[in-house]
């Protein structure tokens, strides 16, 4: 390219080249410095707002302060649901290096069954936000806490956290009234206000805990804290305290509740007692109950399966979800329907040959007494629970009029104010059958409905509410479980209350009451043995509900059937008749009969001055922890 270079240094040229090159270098340096400066201007001036926000988000963390859950008392102030400090194991996934290893270590350290790992993994996924702890195990024992403390260095991201946990001192008898709280699940989470529930692990699942969740939960507070990069809280910047949940006083009298539970004596059944004037549910028992405390801590799979496979269905709230044929207990209401609709007068005599026949039909609808009660008026019909009389009434009314009147007493409807899960039962009608089965209504079905059988279904709560309304001369008060929520008294009148049942003649109430009194004190009364020696006037009606349909002209022997096919025994009643204080519905499954005694014992306990229920209530106030804050 050019002349062969001499192996000689050209000093002048070297200096010139060097000067040139260093000039170029200086230029490049200026360009590079310019790049840095423009980058700095971009970061520190143009995007400054973005980064200042990011740096604040870095150091500031908003921590929820979960509110203390409201307590639940019975009507006399006895504590039914409280909060106890327990120690829980929580995990923050973001701080765990290797989730599988950590979970396996926990299983090893705490000596848990191997299959817990999968449960853990599931629970560790359940979390609200990044860096929010997920609950792994509740209610650690002292021993477990100690073992965790020793192995703490192996378990980054795992924390033992003190927490207030729901505790029910009377878990079995109160189970179906209170319901229980449990861990918030994914579906519930979707419907919750995430801010308010940020620090809350539990939510009311059933019962009062569910119905009054909002009031019991309270309002979460929050604190703004400054943290370092490892999440350690350095100082509190701001705090707005949580508003504790409201305490709830129930209408339940826990001693009456216990008495009712004990009266059922281990049998399957339900008892509901209502104060007619106020609608207060004094007792609401479904037996057997179950230990609701187990559900708070997270019931083990084994225990849960045992509950589910138990033939007595302890999880089933019979009092509000048990839909039974009400049997003869509907007769007083049906009598009112017949009177009001003018198909009979109180003194009208119906002749009972032992059966009823529809016109142009050979089928005989039998009275329970095969040879019949002979001449029967309204009072005697109720006293002896005559079927022929009520077949006649039902036939005369027809299903539509009967159904419409029974609806006024709440049959086929949910009338309660705050009872979670209450079912409406079934008050059949022509229209219902057409819609449901696309079939015509047969006259024979009217007769079945007339003695509370066939399609007719009612829950114990409905029967008690109807009885209370009957006791009130038709005045409706919605039955309710809460007497006081925080400072607010839960008192009638309630919104959406059914209109009162109006009769053309007020004395018809007395006519029906007289028949119901005769059930207990008449010479032929179906519960005359129980009614002996009563110190107050009580109106009642017994009933049986067939579990097993008998064919025409079939007779059965209760002993030959297995116990579970025997009739359900029912009882409704209220007392005293002139100033009703309590209305009761009792149902004992497969009892065959004879449960009126339960009703009387409860009214005795409620009304008699020497009853133990009249003792000053035991309202020992438990020592209570106000709240436990984080850290």
């Amino acid at each position, binding site marked *: 390219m050019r002349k062969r*270079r*001499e*192996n*000689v*240094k*050209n*000093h002048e*040229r*070297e*200096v010139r*080249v*060097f*000067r040139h*090159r*260093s000039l170029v*270098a*200086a230029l490049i*340096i*200026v360009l*590079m*410095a310019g*790049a*840095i*400066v423009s*980058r*700095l*201007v971009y*970061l*520190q*001036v143009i*995007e*400054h707002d*973005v*980064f*200042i926000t*990011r*740096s*604040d988000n*870095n*150091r500031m963390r908003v921590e929820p302060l979960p509110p203390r859950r409201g307590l639940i008392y019975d009507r006399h102030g006895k504590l039914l649901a409280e909060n106890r400090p327990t120690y829980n194991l929580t995990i923050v996934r*973001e701080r765990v290096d290797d989730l599988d290893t950590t979970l396996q270590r926990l299983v090893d350290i705490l000596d848990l069954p191997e299959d817990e790992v999968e449960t853990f993994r599931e629970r560790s996924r359940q979390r609200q936000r990044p860096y929010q702890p997920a609950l792994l195990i509740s209610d650690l024992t002292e021993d477990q806490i100690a073992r965790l403390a020793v192995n703490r260095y192996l378990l980054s991201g795992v924390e033992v956290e003190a927490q207030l946990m729901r505790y029910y001192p009377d878990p079995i008898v109160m189970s179906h009234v209170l319901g229980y709280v449990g861990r918030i699940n994914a579906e519930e989470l979707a419907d919750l206000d995430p801010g308010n529930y940020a620090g809350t692990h539990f939510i009311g699942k059933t019962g009062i805990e569910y119905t009054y969740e909002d009031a019991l939960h309270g309002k979460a507070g929050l604190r703004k804290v*400054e*943290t*370092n*990069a*490892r999440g350690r809280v*350095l100082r509190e910047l701001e705090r707005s305290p949580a508003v504790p949940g409201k305490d709830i006083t129930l209408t339940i009298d826990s001693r009456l509740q216990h008495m009712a539970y004990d009266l059922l004596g281990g049998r399957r059944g339900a008892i509901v007692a209502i104060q007619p004037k106020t609608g207060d549910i004094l007792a609401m028992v479904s037996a057997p109950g179950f230990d609701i405390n187990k559900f708070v801590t997270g019931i083990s799979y084994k225990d849960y399966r045992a509950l589910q496979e138990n033939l007595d269905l302890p999880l089933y709230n019979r009092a509000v979800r048990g839909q039974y044929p009400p049997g003869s207990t509907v007769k007083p209401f049906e009598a009112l329907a017949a009177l009001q609709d003018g198909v009979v007068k109180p003194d009208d005599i119906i002749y009972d040959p032992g059966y009823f026949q529809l016109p142009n039909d050979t089928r005989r609808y039998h009275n329970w007494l095969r040879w019949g009660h002979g001449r029967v008026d309204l009072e005697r019909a109720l006293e002896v629970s005559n079927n022929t009389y009520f077949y006649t009434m039902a036939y005369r009314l027809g299903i539509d009029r009967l159904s419409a009147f029974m609806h006024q007493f709440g049959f086929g409807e949910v009338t309660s104010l705050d009872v979670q899960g209450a079912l409406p039962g079934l008050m059949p009608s022509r229209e219902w059958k057409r819609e449901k089965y696309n079939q015509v209504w047969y006259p024979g079905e009217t007769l079945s409905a007339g003695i509370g059988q066939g399609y007719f279904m009612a829950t114990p709560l409905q029967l008690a509410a109807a009885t209370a309304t009957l006791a009130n001369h038709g005045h409706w008060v919605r039955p309710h479980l809460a007497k006081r929520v925080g400072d607010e008294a839960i008192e009638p009148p309630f919104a959406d209350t059914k209109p009162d049942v109006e009769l053309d003649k007020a004395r018809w109430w007395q006519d029906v009451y007289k028949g119901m009194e005769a059930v207990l004190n008449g010479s032929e009364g179906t519960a005359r043995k129980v009614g002996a020696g009563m110190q107050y006037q009580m109106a009642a009606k017994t009933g049986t509900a067939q579990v097993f349909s008998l064919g025409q002209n079939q007779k059965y022997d209760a002993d030959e059937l297995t116990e579970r096919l025997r009739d359900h025994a029912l009882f409704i009643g209220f007392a005293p008749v002139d100033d009703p204080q309590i209305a009761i519905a009792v149902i004992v499954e497969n009892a065959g009969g004879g449960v009126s005694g339960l009703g009387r014992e409860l009214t005795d306990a409620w009304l008699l001055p020497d009853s133990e229920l009249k003792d000053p209530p035991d309202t020992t106030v438990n020592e209570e922890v106000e709240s436990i804050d984080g850290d």
Partner: protein
Amino acid sequence: MATDFQRVAPGNHRARVGRKRSLWLRVHLDPWLLSILLLLISFGLVVLYSASGMSASTTMAQASRMGVALLGAIVIAQFSPGTLFRWTPVAYGGGLLMLIAVEIMGDIGMGAQRWLEIGPLRFQPSELMKIAMPMMLAAYFHRRPLPPTWRDLIVCAVIVGVPVLLIARQPDLGTSLLVTCAAVFVILLAGLSWKFILALVALAGGAAPLLWINMHDYQRQRVLTFLNPESDPLGAGWNIIQSKTAIGSGGLEGKGWGLGTQSQLEFLPERHTDFIVAVLGEEFGLIGMSTILVLYLLLVSRGLVMANNAQDTYGRLLAGSIVLTFFIYVFVNIGMVTGILPVVGVPLPLVSYGGTSSVTLMAGFGILMSIHTHRRLLTH
């Protein structure tokens, strides 16, 4: 004359004193360079005090370390470039031997390591190479007519390649690149023709995939993270996100000394070493960043002036390379912390906490002063 010049070690001519030499020249120091260095070191210590979480002991340790390094520079400045020239092959050869020793020790089973331990001293041979490499090349070109030829380049490739490969195998990609840089600057300043430069750039571009293949996983991760730091915000991208947040949130005036929340609350990793400039950016803002940048630019300018005043090839090339490499350190570090360059473990010169690199840098400035103050004054 030229031949004669060629045979004589540079800067070794007896000074023919025409007029009285200034005091600064007699103590072989440059007042400009020293003042800027002192300003930078002081500013650095102020930042370090905050970055170390107000640790007086850390700051004092660094101050004394910088004092020793400065003293070392002053001592080195007393040696004439001729002496340095004569010792150049020893420094280079010794460094090479020590690199080999490190390599062998790694093979024997002490794991990857960068240090040699001689008694209580821990010595990093790659640091020595940062100085010995430009010295060696400058000395080579000092004996050669310039601009460099193909033959020269091949010789250079050997001189540069062997130690650089050894350093890269330690593995210390950052240092090996910086040593290469120092060497490249010598070659460029020696007047390598633009055609060669373009060809080399093209070659480097072609070699990039090869480099990628030979990278360690963590090195590749750094590059990937640089390309998209948000991809792994809690892992590898954390450093960059936090340092950008620190600098960006500093704004124009900064949050104030010791008040940077990113730094003081430990969101910023390696805040007193590689990422110290983020502390500066957060607490002193754009004003503080501009100040330190101006100080660095002043230092580099003074260095370039001194290099241009050098009277022989060896001094010129060595001084130029030292100055340019110094700026590369600054650029790579700030570029990394502000997120325009990938994360490589390069400390901010004279400011980051740590001894080894300061000593090397100061030695460089000592050489610079030696070259500058041992001139034949007649030419002035």
